[in-house]
């Protein structure tokens, strides 16, 4: 880092914490409106019961469970990417770990909320603790999702401590009393002493090793809610890895989307560089290709055999009443985004569009995993129909709003870039360069792009 870079980093990273634009309030208002609408809709559902939804006896799950699977997917990449990059010591990770971890925590909160909203008897929520049976796949979820949430939250928090200490020191006397209290509480007396650094390293090291298996377990267990039944479309042995890879794909796209937004709104051009988006795009393509492979493995085997129920389902999916969802979801969400392997498709507006498409496609994919399989008749009765009501749509909108709201508020209180990790990275780079001096400067600047004839 050249002289002054460190100071500029702090300025850029901390500026949004002290300066609030009018646009931010508008955005906050919108998100509050969305989440508020969700609460209103849920209160209606509490009064009228699940009759307020479009779910009925054949299609017993709908948008809520689709959202549940979707958000659990989004939650995957953040922690996973951050942990993998930390473990492998990838230097370029430094500016993006915090966004990644935050995405995970926020998405997991929405994941946890959705099954609760879906319950027919929310008043009996505690029965899950009183009578929980380990044989039920739902209990596996109830065990693993809070575990993942806790682990991700601790993981996010540990690497936040040094930054909170920076805030505590920098904003002394400048921010409100409440904020100062918050920062000094979060910083838990951090002064960057060697002993403290050592402990953070150990704690962080343990957590980064833990979150990976817990993350994989989460997605496996979510898939097994479906995979443990006999239904056509769910009765699959590859569901766990299929969901885990889908989650990586979806979460990676979400991470890129969010980074592009922050880059623009918080002026982080210097830190979220072409190189970051290139590397993340490569990872996205890798996950996308693996996901495609799983999709082919899943659908080819069943469409070859055409077992009774499977045939009914596949016909409706690809040529029947769901084809208007399946084909766009597949072509726009799974095939088209692979373009990000090419340089021109990584121009930020295009990249942004493509990553949004990935998640639109993944949401559709979740929906067509949940609904058509349930609608598929088990006995010779009619296909189930499902039309979500305004209550379900409002709660779905609120879940997306809530997801964005948590990220927005967090980014108002804490720097979205891990300042201390960047500084540390610069120190390491400087130490390495000391003997040779004037060699090319490391990761931080966009200038570094030539020579990668990848496309």
């Amino acid at each position, binding site marked *: 880092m050249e002289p002054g870079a460190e100071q500029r980093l702090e300025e850029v990273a901390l500026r949004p914490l002290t300066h609030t634009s009018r646009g931010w309030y508008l955005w906050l208002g919108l998100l509050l409106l969305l989440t508020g609408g969700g609460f209103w809709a849920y209160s209606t559902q509490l009064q*009228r019961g699940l009759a307020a939804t479009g779910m009925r*006896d054949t299609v017993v799950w709908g948008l809520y469970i689709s959202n549940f699977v979707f958000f659990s997917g989004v939650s995957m990449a953040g922690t996973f990417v951050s942990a993998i990059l930390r473990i492998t010591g990838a230097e370029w990770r430094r500016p993006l770990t915090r966004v990644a971890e935050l995405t995970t925590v926020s998405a997991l909160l929405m994941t946890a909320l959705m099954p609760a909203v879906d319950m*027919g*008897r929310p008043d009996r929520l505690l029965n899950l603790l009183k009578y*929980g*049976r380990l044989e*039920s796949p739902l209990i596996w979820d109830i065990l693993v999702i809070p575990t993942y949430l806790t682990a991700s939250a601790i993981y996010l928090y540990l690497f936040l401590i040094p930054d909170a200490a920076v805030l505590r020191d920098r904003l002394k006397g400048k921010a409100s009393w409440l904020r100062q209290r918050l920062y000094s509480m979060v910083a838990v007396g951090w002064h960057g002493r060697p002993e403290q650094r050592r402990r953070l390293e150990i704690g962080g090291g343990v957590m980064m090793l833990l979150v990976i298996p817990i993350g994989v377990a989460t997605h496996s267990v979510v898939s097994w809610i479906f995979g443990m039944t006999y*239904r056509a479309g769910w009765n699959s042995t590859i569901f766990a890895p299929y969901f885990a890879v889908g989650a990586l794909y979806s979460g990676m796209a979400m991470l890129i989307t969010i980074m592009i937004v922050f880059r623009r709104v918080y002026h982080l051009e210097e830190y979220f560089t072409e190189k970051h988006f290139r590397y993340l795009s490569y990872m996205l393509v890798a996950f996308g290709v693996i996901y495609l492979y799983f999709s082919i493995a899943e659908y080819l085997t069943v469409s070859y055999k055409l077992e009774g129920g499977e045939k009914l389902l596949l016909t409706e999916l690809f040529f029947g009443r769901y084809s208007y969802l399946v084909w766009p979801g597949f072509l726009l969400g799974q095939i088209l985004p692979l373009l990000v392997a090419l340089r021109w498709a990584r121009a930020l507006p295009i990249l942004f569009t493509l990553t949004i498409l990935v998640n639109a496609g993944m949401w559709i994919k979740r929906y067509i995993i949940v609904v058509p399989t349930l609608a598929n*008749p088990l006995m010779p009765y009619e296909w189930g129909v499902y039309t979500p009501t305004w209550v379900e749509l409002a709660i779905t909108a609120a879940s997306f709003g809530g997801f964005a709201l948590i990220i927005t508020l967090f980014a108002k209180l804490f720097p979205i870039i891990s300042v201390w990790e960047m500084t540390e990275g610069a120190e390491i780079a400087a130490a390495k360069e000391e003997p040779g001096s004037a060699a090319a400067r490391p990761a931080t600047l966009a200038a570094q792009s030539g020579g990668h004839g990848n496309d």
Partner: protein
Amino acid sequence: MDRQENYRKWQVSRRRLLKLAGVAGVAAVAAPLLPTLLTKIGGASAESDGTGKKASRRQWAMVIDLRKCEGCVTKDQAPQCIEGCNKEHFVPQGQEWIRVFEMEGAGGHSYFLPRPCMQCENPPCVKVCPVGATYRTQEGIVLVNHERCIGCRMCMAACPYGVRVFNWDQPENPPGATFASYSPEFPIPHRRGTVEKCMLCAHRVKDGKIPACAEACPMYAIYLGDLTEDVATNGKEVVKLSRFLADTNAFRLKEELGTRPRVWYIPGHGQESGHTVDAEHQPIKTARSWQEMEATDKKASAEDHGGH
């Protein structure tokens, strides 16, 4: 030399002791889980009653003779089994705990298939219930405890026969239901946000009565059986169950799934009730709800009184 040997032994034994302690620790944690695991694996061993000796309990089963069932189309009625069930259980509007399907048989002719709960010996619904609200009794009936059900509908997703239904809305209850003493064997009052299903009339069979659907069937097509005593009856005749099933090539639904249903079907298309393959196609009629039936009953009795 000896001393050293002894010392070594002691050392080893200490290590063993530690190991043993470790194993014991793990066992202590795992022990409470073991019986559940074993019964899961053993499957049928869940039928012992916990007193140690094998109890000679009833093992309820059902046989549906499709040679006799013609979906009540020749009688120009809605399936009487459904109506009988609706009346007996005050089945909430829009639900059918036993359903009658018109199936496509060989050669393109149709036959009728009443489908109660299969009372599986290896019930997928019971496995997935997160709170143990649905369970299988020692007499082989799958029941729901509506006071515990959380309404997650996982059991509905798991049932391969589409048996279970849900109270999406507040179901209408018969007068006085609020004061009825609830039991899973006779689930009144019905509650919103809980799962309902056919429960083989657990409250009737324990009093020696056949299920309401069997009693209501004008063709005597439905038999209640007991695997322990190897008998079955439709209320008119008594048969030796195993012999009956063997003689008639009885089958079970989706047997390949391994759910081991306790409901057997005798292949047929209603021929014994006069429904021929060549008969003009008549659709199954919609059954009345218990409210409708009560209303018509009242009207009929009022007219009776008027006539006298």
